[in-house]
């Protein structure tokens, strides 16, 4: 086998691009058959519930295998950087989470200074990876709860000052948290349910996952 040296960032970009393409192809098949669960589609195609879906099911299985291999590969190349606060964490697990993070990465990191025409700062890569770390730790934290609350997919926004804002808006509650560009600053949050009662304040980064769980418990 011939070995060549490749810049790590370039390699990661290639992997991200390939992952995105695979994810789009997977979603295209899911949309075609009006499914949102890969396993269910594969199962229904196998048992004949879904007629004439065999070719797509084979294709879907191959795409999922390729994607899982690529995610493993990415995890391996991210591993060196995963130590310490500034490193790159594992992505939250799940198809929709992967798609969310990849889309946010492409969108947020492509913004340049003054992207809003009113002097907004670009989002730094370190801020983005801190947001990913928060979402990964939130996922793990939620799974550890005795009666694990449903973890909804949030929207991820750039802030004018270079921070990142993550917002959940569900039928039961609304929660907004900020991921500051400056690691020494606390995160700010604001949550509310259907009624007038709200929860708000500042909190250290490590305690942010608890805020989500509190919000779900208070307002659901």
């Amino acid at each position, binding site marked *: 086998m011939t070995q060549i040296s490749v810049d790590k960032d370039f390699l990661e970009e290639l992997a991200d691009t390939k992952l995105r393409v695979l994810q789009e192809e997977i979603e295209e098949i899911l949309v075609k058959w009006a499914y949102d669960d890969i396993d269910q589609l594969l199962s229904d195609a196998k048992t004949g519930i879904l007629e004439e879906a065999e070719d797509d099911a084979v294709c879907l299985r191959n795409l999922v295998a390729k994607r899982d291999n690529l995610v493993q590969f990415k995890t391996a190349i991210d591993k060196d950087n995963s130590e310490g606060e500034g490193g790159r964490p594992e992505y939250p697990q799940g198809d929709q989470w992967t798609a969310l993070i990849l889309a946010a990465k492409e969108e947020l990191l492509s913004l340049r200074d*003054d992207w809003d025409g009113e002097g907004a700062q670009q989002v730094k890569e370190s801020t983005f990876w801190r947001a990913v770390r928060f979402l990964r730790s939130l996922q793990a934290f939620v799974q550890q709860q005795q009666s694990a609350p449903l973890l909804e997919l949030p*929207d991820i926004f750039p802030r004018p000052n270079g921070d990142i804002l993550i917002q959940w808006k569900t039928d039961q509650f609304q929660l907004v948290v900020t991921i500051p560009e400056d690691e020494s600053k606390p995160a700010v949050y604001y949550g509310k349910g259907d009624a007038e009662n709200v929860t708000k304040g500042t909190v250290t980064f490590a305690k942010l996952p608890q805020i989500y769980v509190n919000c779900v418990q208070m307002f659901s």
Partner: protein
Amino acid sequence: MTNEVEEIFDEDLLYRRIHVQYVKKSLSPDAFDFRGDGCSVDLARLTTPESTRSGSPRNPPECYKVGVLEAGKVRGIGLTLDHCPEPDNPAHSLILPPGGIEAADILGFQTELVNLCLQRPLL
């Protein structure tokens, strides 16, 4: 139109230029950020949505949506409104938060402004 300061009545509508980056499944609270003197809006009776949308000197109008707020509802959540006409924008007004409040309160006001804004379709 003149540059005289006008009273903003509760039934007045206000237009806010909102960058499309803030529009996803939900609307970001930063659609109403309080950078500088306050949150800039336009008094609707002195302008048009198209004029508000094209008010950025650096980005094309396609980069923006226009959110609509009712003045009375903005006051109803504890914010103040001032008409502050500018030479190139006689409709310019400011939404001002109370003094001496914390970052979480600001985020709360921004979130509530978004919720008020979503009572009407974005233009």
